[in-house]
């Protein structure tokens, strides 16, 4: 029988998904209003991964989300304020405003963040898992990357090393069917990226990445086993990003029909329906939760406005070590 959350965990999970969703919507609005600069990659549609992965991990397990990872960062512990502050480049940002959206790193919550160089965090994660193994810890490292990233040489080199050294590294491929504009079916030579584990004598699995209970229970099962018997694992989660790749994307490379189909499979609505079925939430309570989340994020955003930024002189302190 499929794994099911109890009521408490269901409510917490829903809150996380709604927070991720609303956070990204807010970021999108702020961009439109010119209140955030640079670029950003929004994870709307992928909330089941955000709410399913980090809660299934131990507090001391590390994650390395990719560039589309705000939701993961929140799920691992950073507050919306921490991240919004970073996007607004103020001193209170997780990276003091030095990193921005592509580099949300929060070591307090064991989040080593994303590299802007797609695919380069994969071997970094192997190194972290190796060091944890050397130290005799029972922790795992989970690195997230996209379908397109699985074509980088770093993927190959990293998975091979993880396998020969048996390090507890969970490779989570978030296959949302597209790179920037190129469909995975044109750039990835296999249907299921999970089969690439064969090349490294590694276990793997494909799951529905929009089913939050499945994501959670799979990650839990795999990582529990990895702790006992350190080894890597390649997990592929099929999902979809609703919005464009980044703010300037006109999405000419895919059809409105496809987008509509995937919106039918919204991870939030699907889980909400289950919660209602199970009597864990009512429509009204759901709306209330949504409104609360919205208010919280609005408040966090307001709190960022006009706040102080790091100065040039201070920034020099981060360049060199001694």
């Amino acid at each position, binding site marked *: 029988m499929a794994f099911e959350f109890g009521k408490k965990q269901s409510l917490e999970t829903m809150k996380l998904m709604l927070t991720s969703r609303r956070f990204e919507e807010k970021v999108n609005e702020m961009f439109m209003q010119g209140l955030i*600069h*640079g*670029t950003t990659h929004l994870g709307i549609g992928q909330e089941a991964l955000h709410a399913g992965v980090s809660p299934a991990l131990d507090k001391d397990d590390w994650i390395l989300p990719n560039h589309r990872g705000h939701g993961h960062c929140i799920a691992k512990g950073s507050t919306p304020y921490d991240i919004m502050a*970073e996007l607004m*480049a103020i001193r209170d940002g997780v*990276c*003091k*405003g*030095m*990193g*921005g*959206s*592509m*580099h949300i790193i929060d070591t307090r919550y064991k989040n080593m963040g994303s*590299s*802007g*160089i*797609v*695919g380069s965090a994969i071997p970094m994660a192997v190194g972290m898992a190796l060091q944890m193994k050397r130290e005799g810890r029972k922790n795992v490292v989970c690195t997230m990357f996209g379908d*397109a*990233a699985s*074509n*980088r*040489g770093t993927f190959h080199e990293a998975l091979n090393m993880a396998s020969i050294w048996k390090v507890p590294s969970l490779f989570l491929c978030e296959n949302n069917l597209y*790179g*920037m*504009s*190129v469909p995975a079916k*044109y*750039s*990835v030579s296999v249907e299921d990226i999970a089969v690439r584990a064969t090349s490294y004598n590694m276990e793997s699995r494909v799951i529905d990445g929009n089913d939050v209970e499945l994501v959670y229970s799979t990650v839990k099962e795999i990582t529990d086993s990895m702790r006992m018997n350190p080894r890597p694992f390649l997990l592929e989660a099929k999902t979809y990003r609703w919005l464009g790749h980044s703010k300037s*994307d006109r999405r*000419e*490379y895919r059809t409105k029909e496809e987008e509509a189909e995937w919106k039918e499979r919204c991870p939030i609505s699907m889980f909400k329906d289950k919660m209602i079925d199970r009597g864990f939430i009512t429509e009204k309570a759901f709306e209330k939760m949504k409104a609360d989340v919205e208010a919280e994020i609005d408040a966090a955003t307001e709190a960022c406005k006009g706040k102080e*930024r*790091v*100065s*040039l002189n201070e*920034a*020099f302190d981060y*360049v060199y070590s001694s």
Partner: protein
Amino acid sequence: MAEITFLQAINEAMSEEMRANKNVVLIGEDIGIYGGCFGASRGMLEEFGTDQMLETPISEEGFMDLAMGASMIGMRPIVEIMFGDFSTLVSDGLINHAAKYKFMTGGQVEVPLVFRAPFGSGTGAAAQHSQSLETMFTNTPGLKIVYPATPYDAKGLLKSAIRDNGPVLFFENKLLYRAKGEVPEGDYTIEIGKADIKREGTDVSIITYSRMLPVCLEAAEQLAAEGISAEVVDLRSLKPLDTETIIKSVMKTSRALVVHEAPKFGGFAGEVVAAIMESEAFYHLDAPVARLGGKEMPVPYNPDIEKQIVPVIDDVKETVRKLVNNGGVKV
């Protein structure tokens, strides 16, 4: 003559060359329907199809090496990399392969390959998407490197690069993409290795390239109001470097300032300074040659700081004033 943007100039150069020669092939990520991350190839897929538009997986090292292999047997690839920062991923293909195969084979092969990469800060893209990495390549024999600053130069130099039988690195700056300028519609080329005096002057030579050109030109304009006549030399090519034009200019003005966006320490300006030092111009200097470059810092996301780490008009003016008035920057 029509006014078009730098991006359009690149698009025109590529399209004209691809029309003329089916072996000219654009290779890169999201260059098809998407038209390239910055839009350089917008609309080209329709005309050229997938035979001349090779949209790649995220495999920078692989597709650079692939292009290099194909170039030796007839293809004339233009490799576009989405951000110049990813030059690190293709440096092996360029430095260890493209630059050396003609030499290592005793002249058996040619490598007619163009590498296009957008450099530069100012877009809020932070440390890994904002660099100016020209010095990764300027010390490599076998490579030619151009770095145009105007749509006119971009089109003419890109055409020369495509027609060159060796590897040419064609660097672009993101903040110049929307800049407009007059560009002839048909065919013309600009010789690689020739600098261009973008403004004549008699008191000081400001030697620069790419995005710092408009900054230096504006500074020169403002300095003119103060009675200082600045000559602005646009290098356009870094390798080969047009030392003749540089030297002539400095012999005329007796003072020189070299400006670039990349960090000052270890930046290309050092080569220019040394070239002046080694020439007759040295004996004509009324002040030491000055340099302006980026601060010793990765590019931050924080936009306030991002603006402060590259030279601006006031920096140029101030340095020129010092050169002209006190005969140099005493320490």
